[in-house]
């Protein structure tokens, strides 16, 4: 490689990357208003941001994952502990964190400042940042709620599993035989409707299936069995 080629690598590499970066910056800037719902970014929120900076909160806490790493991330603090929780910690950190092994300084904030910081954190909590942090992920909470609701209807499904002797072929937890698939694994792969249809006529859904048809059960009972099996799916997240 000669010096000329080396110069080309420098200029082409730099300028291509720079052009791409500036173009995307332009586009991102256009879309920030919608992604951060900037319409709700009022004077109180901005005053809250100024207070947040004046008291150097960000050198202990992280927010959107950036900052001091020493204290909890504040991206979803408002969603997690609400305005009252934030007020209590800001007004009387010595009391709120009396039992904690890490303290927060008492900064004697005015009532206005406290209210503004709470408004600011409320606004931050609504930024659409691809569901980060995982601990506060909306998708993960939804999955956990789905499982909770599914297990509330546990007994009728469990009764049907007993009544139809499913465990003479399948395994559930530590019980049953291993001729068929483990029920928890079925639940992780299939939805309730699929299982209900399958129960009515296995041969039709999966030709050559070993399992007998449970066409004597009512459609409602098959649906219940399906929901029960889905509720057994091995835990993901919470």
């Amino acid at each position, binding site marked *: 490689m000669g010096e000329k080629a080396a110069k080309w690598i420098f200029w082409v590499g730099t300028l291509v990357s720079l052009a791409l970066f500036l173009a995307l910056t332009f586009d991102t800037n256009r879309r920030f208003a919608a992604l*951060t719902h900037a319409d709700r970014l009022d004077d109180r929120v901005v005053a809250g941001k100024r207070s947040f900076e004046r008291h150097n909160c960000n050198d202990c806490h992280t927010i959107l994952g950036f900052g001091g790493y020493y204290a909890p991330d504040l991206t979803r603090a408002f969603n997690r502990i609400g305005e009252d929780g934030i007020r209590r910690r800001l007004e009387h950190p010595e009391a709120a964190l009396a039992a904690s092994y890490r303290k927060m300084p008492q900064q004697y904030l005015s009532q206005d400042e406290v209210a503004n910081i709470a408004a600011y954190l409320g606004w931050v909590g609504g930024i659409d940042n691809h569901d980060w942090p995982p601990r506060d992920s909306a998708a993960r909470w939804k999955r956990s709620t789905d499982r909770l609701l599914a297990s509330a209807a546990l007994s009728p499904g469990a009764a049907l599993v007993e009544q139809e002797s499913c465990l003479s072929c399948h395994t559930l937890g530590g019980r049953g035989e291993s001729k068929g698939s483990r029920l928890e694994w079925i639940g992780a792969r299939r939805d309730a409707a699929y299982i209900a249809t399958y129960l009515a006529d296995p041969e039709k859904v999966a030709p050559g299936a070993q399992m007998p048809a449970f066409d004597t059960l009512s459609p409602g009972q098959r649906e219940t069995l399906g929901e029960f099996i889905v509720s057994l799916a091995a835990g993901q997240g919470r």
Partner: protein
Amino acid sequence: MTFRSQSVAYPYFVVALLLFALQIPVGLWLAVNYFVTIPQSAVDAFPFATARAIHTNLLVLWLLLGFMGATLYLVPEETGTELAWPKMAIAQLALLAATGVAAIVGFLFGWTQGRPLLEIPRPLDILVVVGSLMFLANIAVTMIRAKRWTAVQGSLLGGLLFLALMYLFGIPFYRNLAVDWYCWWWVIHLWVEGAFELIAAAMVAFMLIKLTGVDRRVIEKWLYVEPGLSLFTGIAGTGHHYYWLGAPKYWLWIGGFFSALEPFPILLMVYDAWRSVKERTQPLLPRLTWVYLTGMVIIHFVGAGMFGFAHTLPMINYFTHGSQVTVSHGHLSFYGAYVLLTLTFFYFAIPRLKGFPGRSYEERTGHIGFWLTTLGVVGMTLAFAVAGVLQTYLERALGQPHMVAQQPIRFWMLVVAVHGLVVLAGVLLVVRHLLTLRPARLAEA
């Protein structure tokens, strides 16, 4: 030293080293905060946040003064002329050092811009800009008057202009937090993975030319390729900071792709240094300078390249973002890429500035200092990494509350602090050694 005005570099080195020595004990105090419960009254008087602002700003200040000193040493030799205004260089050092001290005293009294790493209050920012303009004018005018351009100068001046330009994006107040962080990274990321890389490449090339005796044209050719690839991956690679701040989803692809390539230019630097050493026409002396250069090249690659790559892909970063994993990467990469670079340059330049015969110096304490500091930093980095992986698993994967997940991390912060003590011992030795560098005795030389 070939030119009289090169001597202005020395006071820069001295101030930089003193600030470096001050940075480490503050860092130790930060580690203590993690495993000891500091009483409320002490937290009220001197919060973690203040100590962190001091620790990081001292780093930035001493590195920048180190780079500036290196530049002032390098430019007369590259251009073959005296500096345009050597006295202004001294005035500028006084201005920047005073600004830095004012900022740090200000932090203690709660005077801050309140944005991590950019805590210097806005009125002082103006002084920083004035100081930078004095510096840039001095360098640029020297180069222009000399009318002799080399790739080393180009890379250096380009890096310094880029550095100064990006600083401006850190000054305004931004209403929208997402926009704020977007621009914050123009300063932080484009400094360390853009401007600093250009300056570093120039400094390394300059030292390699002088130390190995390899033909300048060969080394300068790589001086185009290496920064070219650094900037190609580094500029669009800024996207790896834009995953979770409220920016559009395409940044996950752009950031992931470009930052996955970021280790390659560093690998090229490793190869480049190795090749120059192989083709050298001069012996590798003094040994300690070479120990530093080798350490810099290796730890730069491990800290910035490998530790960076480990958590740069979006599917991993979703869990590691904003945890001690970042802290681990930050410490090793800054040490490898920029601390060792600056110290290497000091060891290269000071014997020349002081006119030691054969440019050799009494090395013994320096070796002990290097190994204590390096092993300390590596141990500290590994302890941060364990803490980071624990935090990632407990808080991000299992969903434990932050303070519950922090509990088992406290032990690893104790391990960090123990290594921090080793670093402190090493750094004090290095600083004392450099400030009292003596020519080698004839029997040894």
